């Protein structure tokens, strides 16, 4: 009975949504207002204006950089949320199921992970640094970095990872995302420009492009390192269990 009412209500909502979807301009047509209003400028001048061959990187770091600052703040907030609920891991009081399990992890897994992790980290760095030219960017690379930490923890144990990644350094790196934006954005502010402006007119024109690349790179590395550390910290905080 209760289920029936829910299904009926949800069905009504579906009809509402579908009526909206049907009235939208046809998908995939270049005449759509979404495609003809702002996009032409991004596609035509984005490479020179924003300083990245990958227009998406140009948009997320330059045209809509403020949104991305919000995004890195959201993941920082999520980490703080997880810490507020569960607390930091502490080897004196905590261990994990991985460490406690009596099943010996197989040699093959250990060998493969040991061999692969350096390459995974290399790949992550490539994705972070090459984001302006190809698909990828700070956060994708950061997620892969975080995943490599997860793989290490699952094969070599919880306590090893916590020892290798001391809390003091992690606390600093977790804030790297917003800090990268702050450092790059404030330079423009001091030169009398708006926040997050990367082209500094008072510098000789030959160096302007270089400085912009440098500032964008700081942001990318900040997002990547910050994102990766946050994912690792969230994982460790959720994985821990109290010692008996």
């Amino acid at each position, binding site marked *: 009975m209760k289920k029936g009412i829910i299904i009926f209500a949800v069905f009504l909502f579906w009809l509402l949504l579908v009526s909206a979807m049907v009235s939208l301009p046809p998908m995939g047509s270049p005449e759509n207002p979404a495609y003809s209003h702002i996009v032409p400028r991004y596609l035509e001048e984005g490479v020179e204006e924003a300083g990245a061959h*990958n227009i998406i990187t140009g948009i997320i770091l330059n045209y809509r950089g403020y949104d991305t600052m919000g995004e890195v703040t959201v993941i920082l907030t999520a980490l703080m949320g997880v810490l507020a609920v569960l607390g930091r891991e502490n080897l004196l009081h905590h261990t994990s199921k991985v460490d406690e399990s009596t099943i010996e992890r197989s040699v093959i897994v250990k060998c493969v992970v040991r061999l692969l992790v350096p390459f995974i980290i290399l790949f992550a760095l490539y994705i972070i640094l090459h984001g302006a030219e190809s*698909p990828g960017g700070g*956060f994708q690379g950061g997620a892969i970095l975080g*995943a490599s930490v997860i793989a290490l923890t699952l094969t070599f144990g919880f306590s090893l990872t916590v020892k290798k990644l001391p809390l003091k350094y992690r606390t600093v790196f977790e804030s790297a995302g917003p800090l990268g934006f702050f450092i790059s954005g404030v330079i423009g502010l001091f030169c009398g420009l708006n926040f997050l402006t990367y082209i500094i007119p008072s510098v000789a024109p030959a160096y302007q492009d270089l400085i912009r690349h440098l500032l964008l790179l700081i942001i990318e590395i900040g997002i990547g390192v910050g994102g990766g550390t946050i994912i690792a910290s969230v994982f460790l905080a959720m*994985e821990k269990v109290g010692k008996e």
Partner: protein
Amino acid sequence: MLRSLDVLLLIFLLVTAIGVVCTKDLLGAAIIFSAYSFTMAIVWQQLGAPDLALTEAAVGAGVTTVLFLIAISRTVRREDE
């Protein structure tokens, strides 16, 4: 615009979504959810968004699923418990 592969993928998306809803075993549901995310990544690749496909594969199918798995291992495995 629509190609047969796209239609197939979209229908597969619906099937996996219903699969997530109907599976009583949470571990199974998490794995199906991972498959759902991967399918979504492929759909986005087809729509010309490789950046998003990369992100969804790493975050949606990877990190989110791992988080679900930890939560399931720390709590319950059956839906009715």
